[in-house]
């Protein structure tokens, strides 16, 4: 007996919420980046679940696109974090408020 759609959606919501809370409460930039990945994957899970439920492949294709973008974003984000660390010897986002006027 297949897992009902609601379970998938519930899990995806939980993952997404964990990601959101991670972004809001954590100070380490790397953790924040990982939390963003959680949010993206939460969204991916709903896409795949609906794709199966509706017998429609385009949802899965979309997930591939999201994953590529996520990979690119992670690469750029990590590069930035590395540069910030080299300059300030810290990846604590509370110390990074120099961009304001």
């Amino acid at each position: 007996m297949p897992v009902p759609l609601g379970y998938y959606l519930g899990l995806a919501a939980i993952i997404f919420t964990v990601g959101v809370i991670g972004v809001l409460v954590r100070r380490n930039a790397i953790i924040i980046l990982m939390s963003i990945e959680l949010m993206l994957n939460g969204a991916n899970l709903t896409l795949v679940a609906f794709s199966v439920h509706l017998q429609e492949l385009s949802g899965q294709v979309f997930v591939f696109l999201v994953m590529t973008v996520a990979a690119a974003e992670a690469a750029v984000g990590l590069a930035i974090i590395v540069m910030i660390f080299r300059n300030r010897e810290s990846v604590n986002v509370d110390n990074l408020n120099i961009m304001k006027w």
Partner: protein
Amino acid sequence: MLDKVWLVLLFPLLGFLLNGLFGWKFKRGLINLIACGSVGLSFLVSLGVFLDLLKLAPEARHFEKVLFPWVVSGSFKTAFSFLVDPLSALMILVVSGVAFLIHIYSTGYMHDDPGYVRYFSYLNLFTFSMLLLVLADNLLLMYIGWEAVGLCSYLLIGFWYEKKSAADAGKKAFIVNRIGDFGFALGIMLTFVIFGTVYFTPILERAPEVLQYGGAAATAITLLLFLGAVGKSAQIPLYVWLPDAMEGPTPVSALIHAATMVTAGIYMVARLSALFLMAPVSMLVVAIVGGVTALYAASIGLMQNDIKRVLAYSTISQLGYMFLACGVGAFGAGIFHLMTHAFFKALLFLCAGSVMHALAGELNIQKMGGLKKHMPVTYWTFLMGTLAIAGIPGFSGFFSKDEIIWKAFSSAQGHFLLWFLGAAGALMTAFYMFRLLFLTFHGKSRLTPELEKRAHESPNKMTVPLIILAVLAVIGGYVGIPHLLGGGNRIEKFLEPSFGQVSKAVETHHSGGVELLMMIISVLIALGGVYLAYTFYIKKTELPKKLAERYRSIYTLIYNKYYVDEIYNAVIVQPLKFFAIICWRFFDVIVIDGSANGLAKLVGLIGNLIRRFETGYVRNYALGFVVGVVIILGYFMLR
């Protein structure tokens, strides 16, 4: 030649452009050649035009030349076009002729001036503008010339701009003229509204049909135009700029402030004679303003000690005579006097310049005396000019001034009081001119020893124009010998076509006997003035002082020019200044600057407030982002 009349304008304009743009590179000789040559050529063309006009029958002497259309907008049309008729032909001849002589004189007078090229380019520009003014065949083009001569006047009065008094005098002339020009401009607009055209020919032809005799429209137009003439020709109450204009170089005073520009007002009134004849009230105003000015300015001239200021007040007075003539309808006599005045007043000013040249710029006649032996040519030419202006029989001023005084009495619009103003002015004229002559050239020398040594006759460049002008000042009147003395009054007959029906309006209604009597009276008046001056300043030289002491209050009043400048200052200038300060301190600083600065401050304040949201912390932005998403989603779900 009539077809080539635009050449009259072209040469001085070219001279101005060449000297004005490239003059700083040219040598003296080339500058002189361009400046004098251009005006000389202009004079030759004027002469050709004049002679060609003479060949035509009197009633055919009317030629219009359209150079190119200028403004065409709906029913409003003007062109760069010229009107050649006896009046304008005479004017271009006088203007270019006198201007040519004064250009030559200037090459000697301005010899050491660092602004030599600038001077001559301005002078050429002036000649061009003045010729444009008199040749224009419509009011708008005339207005351009009118304003351009005003500009040149301003530039040349303030020629020595590093001197504060000269710069101020230039500004004064310009501003006072603005009051008059404002009237002139309104007059032109009103003319266009009523006639639907600005061309002289249709306006003058249709004036009797379009306007009602003595109606409000005719009176309004002519009074507005006359306001312009009052400003430009320095009549009461706008004469105050002319005495101050003497700050400019003396040849400029001779050309602009005696011979040509200041006569533009008379020319304009004469040109529009048919309009003025439709408005008897305006004619009366013109005559009264002219007559009163003639007497008033002459009375100030009695007491002045500055050689150029005496001549300046004399000019105002003589311009008053011309307006008096126009006011009683004797336009021909006015223009006749304009011509002879151009000769003898230019001559007198140039002689004054020659004296200043010899005495290192000394102007006070009380410090001169006995110059006759040092400067014989200047003396003799000055004497000719003095005899002419004083109205001694046989000299040009006699014929023209006597004609005016006679017309003031005899014409239909004349009156005994107008005659009296003119005659009393004539007495004063003879007196102050001979006072000037005696104090400057006769008697014992009151020069300082250094000046005594320095005093010399001026170079030929300056004396030759003096001699030519002296000859003209003597014989210039013989073109207008009155019928009574066996002459044909040729000049007025020549000018008649320009004034149309005018001559009938001033038909003389007195017999020859009265005219002869009046002539004898005016000769006696002139001789009386000369005799008085002779007693005061040659025979009993202590007399003027005694009289001045006895009539102290009158003397101070006149010596201080009736305190008119002070009154204008107190009544007009200071209140306006006060008003300007209020506008500046309150309206400008508080209201305008305040609102502009207040607006900027308000924007800054709001910016400062909003800035607090931008903390720079990533989490705050992320929170704002999430909250925003929740709100939008919530909105869509609960809708």
